[in-house]
């Protein structure tokens, strides 16, 4: 009875997306202003395994292209650069957040509305892929 209860409870919990030892949590896509050709997705990716994993790419359903991207503030100038690969050491979490690493979503097929979900597929160097559901929501700005 007890293992069954645990299993039922586990199924009821909102689980983060995982593939083996890789876990994605907190995925979201801020609602984008009308008509923009590029916006962004964010999440946190944790390697709970014992080997370093290498994130090498991303696809996004409903977009012509998606890239791993990094914003930097270099001497008060906002710059962006494409990121080819990100190594995630065992136990390490990589945070995609505004003003830092982000998934650039380019040329949306349709305007995203609050409550939509963007399906991201993360690709890793060993051939693994990880599907991530990123809900579209209004980003709250506050202190």
């Amino acid at each position: 009875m007890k293992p069954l209860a645990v299993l039922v409870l586990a199924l009821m919990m909102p689980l983060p997306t995982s593939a083996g030892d890789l876990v994605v949590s907190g995925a979201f896509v801020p609602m984008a202003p009308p008509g923009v050709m590029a916006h962004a997705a964010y999440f946190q990716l944790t390697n709970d395994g014992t080997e370093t994993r290498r994130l090498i790419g991303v696809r996004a359903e409903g977009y012509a292209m998606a890239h791993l991207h990094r914003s930097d503030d270099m001497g008060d100038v906002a710059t962006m650069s494409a990121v080819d690969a990100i190594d995630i050491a065992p136990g390490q979490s990589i945070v995609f957040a505004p003003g830092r690493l982000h998934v650039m979503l380019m040329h949306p097929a349709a305007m995203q509305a609050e409550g939509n979900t963007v399906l991201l597929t993360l690709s890793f160097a060993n051939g693994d892929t990880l599907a991530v559901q990123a809900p579209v929501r209004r980003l709250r700005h506050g202190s």
Partner: protein
Amino acid sequence: MRRLAILLSLIAAPLMAQVQGVELDEPVALPAFHLDNDMGETLDKVALTGRWTLVMFGFLSCPDVCPFTLGNLEAAVAETSMRVRPDNVPQVVFVSVDPARDAGTVSDYARYFHPDFRGFTGTRDQIDTLIEATDSFYRLMKPDASGYYEVQHSSAVSVIAPDGTLRAKLQPPFDPGATAEFLARLQIAYRRSLNQ
């Protein structure tokens, strides 16, 4: 435990970022310039006098920094409105440095973040005039195979006082509460300087 540490660092980061703005040693008068938008509105030297204005430079295809900054400015202005008189609440102006792609939608873009935010762009020389006057910077990068290009631009936001002079720069991360506090103090210093 590790996740807790990450969570705590995310919460603590905005609190640790104390410097939200820098006041200029000497106010800088703005030269004549002329920008407009798809609504037929004009932004010039006259539009920047008589009230406080925050000017941000950017481009609409900016996936990450520009929308985040405008969202933070919206929250910062809301916070400022609780600290200053209604006629001292700054207007927010977004200036696209990428008129080729943005001229048709720049006002819609700005209004998305707040109905009172206004977006403008213009000819290259007029954009450059305002860029130089505010000691700002931008550069259009080389297009990729699809023709898409990125734009590097100043992340700082220029603060224009009611006398039409550049008085300060706001800096990332634009924490709304700390930015509002900086603006409220700047306005007190400004009024003092006028009474001297």
